[in-house]
């Protein structure tokens, strides 16, 4: 009898240790989310809404981009890389789960970096890498398409719109700003000051789409598929980092 009681007690003790350990592990889990809010200067972004940018009326019909190479650092250069994370950022999606912060040394988020676009290795797609991916994978075939059809690789930033080219206030010409190719990968980075807590840590960013067109006369410069108008694609690339601000 004593033996049985002893065994039961031991089992309960073992179970409680196991349970406690698991609970502790869960409690210690930290993860990172990114909230991205599209804006047009101070205005809320919406498709098919007419805005005025640089004095030209414009109506967006598509505004998507890839984000990759996410990376955080604390003040002591302790790092966490989210190498395998690729985001297809769209206005309709606000929150993006980045993943667990596994480096226990990082307790403070000082530096956030990412790229708009896809690294050259992944961008140099093979047939398998491109269209054998799971449908939920942001790098799989998309609708609307986020890959070049006449060439290999992804479109890093794809903005379709209508613009007013005759100054009558009505956006009536098709505008396409499709930026891609390896040399157009654009790094974006921020200095932040926030402690990393247990659970989900969210960094909120604003993406001001109007900022992309600084120095662009939308009435005359409204089409680039990168290689057919590299100067315009370069202007947009150069404006990308400034289009993001951290809240």
């Amino acid at each position: 009898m004593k033996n049985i009681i002893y065994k039961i007690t031991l089992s309960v003790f073992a179970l409680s240790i196991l349970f406690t350990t698991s609970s502790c592990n869960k409690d210690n889990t930290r993860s990172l989310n990114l909230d991205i809010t599209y804006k047009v200067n101070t205005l809320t972004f919406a498709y098919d809404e007419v805005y005025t940018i640089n004095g030209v009326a414009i109506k967006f019909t598509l505004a998507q981009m890839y984000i990759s190479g996410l990376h955080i650092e604390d003040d002591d250069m302790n790092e966490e890389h989210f190498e395998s994370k690729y985001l297809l950022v769209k206005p309709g999606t606000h929150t993006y789960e980045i993943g667990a912060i596994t480096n226990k040394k990082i307790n403070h988020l000082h530096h956030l970096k990412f790229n708009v676009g896809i690294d050259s290795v992944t961008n140099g797609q093979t047939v398998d890498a491109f269209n054998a991916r799971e449908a939920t994978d942001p790098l799989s075939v998309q609708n609307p398409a986020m890959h070049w059809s006449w060439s290999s690789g992804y479109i890093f930033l794809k903005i379709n719109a209508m613009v007013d080219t005759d100054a009558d206030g009505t956006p009536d010409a098709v505008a396409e700003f499709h930026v891609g190719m390896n040399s157009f990968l654009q790094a974006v980075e921020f200095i932040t000051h926030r402690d990393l807590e247990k659970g989900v840590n969210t960094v909120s960013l604003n993406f001001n789409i109007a900022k992309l067109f600084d120095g662009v006369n939308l009435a005359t410069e409204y089409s680039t598929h990168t290689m057919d108008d590299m100067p315009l694609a370069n202007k947009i690339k150069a404006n990308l980092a400034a289009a993001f601000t951290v809240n």
Partner: protein
Amino acid sequence: MGPIRNSYKFLIFFGWSICFFACEKAPKPYILDLPPGAPIPEIPVDNQLTASRVALGKKLFFDPILSRDSSISCGSCHFQDKSFADNRVISPGIEGRLGLRNAPSLANMIYRDRFFYDGGVPSLELQVLAPIEDHNEMDFNSLDVVERLKNHPDYPAMIRDAYDSEPDVYALTRAIAAFERTLISGYSRYDRYAHQGDVNALTTEEQRGMNLFFSNRTQCGTCHSGFNFSNEEFINIGQYSDYTADPGRRRVTALDSDIGKFKVPSLRNVAVTAPYMHDGSLATLESVIDFFNIGGQAHPNKSPLIQPLGLTMQEKSDLIAFLKSLTDSEFLENPKFK
């Protein structure tokens, strides 16, 4: 004896069943008709040719289901009697939209790589996406095509049979590529002369043209070399002094040294693929020969091979006669491709 007989019956039935299912499971291979002299082609491991894949690809190739308004198919711009090219300068897409370049012949795509005149697409499978998604061609999305295929009375079963999957982009792209790989042309009179030992297959005029074509004087055969009459390189032939309208290979590489460079086209069936050049700007073989005879316009990237040739009228005529001997009538009429 009874139980023994039953055992035999069971064994026979069991063995027959295995054979039946094994035979049923094994896909029927598609045997390529390789003409004499044709190299053994390399076919992607994951898209080996089977009868069901080729049949599926052929049906898709000629089906306007691929275009947004269901008005055009691949076959709307690639005609068999034109060696799967088009006699229009620029083939119209949906709603009559015009793109940038002349539709190339699809003959012997199995031997080619880096597709399109600028070589931007690395495989025949990926190439399939381009016309589907080009705004000036089919103006559709491959995932939208897949949705249509899922709701089609025939395609789901055909795709299951061919690729053991539901309709998806993987099967769509592979099937059309599989069909295109069967479009092999190599039964012209020139082939009979060069590869089948028929010394009477070419006339004297055609033989003179052939010798001129492969001579150091014209250097035609330097770029238009091999079984497919293309070295697969990108060459600036000095067609223009300004390539702003279409910079060619630079569109892919961003290198100024690639401005005006275009993929060397195959000359198989060239007599039926007019108009010529990447933009369809030369209407006849005579105008092409005249262009090369002049030696093109000045351009920093122009190939040194392009020089004035000083051809006589007879030599021009001989060259054209030779080029016409590359026509493979069997290919242009083969019912397998209809």
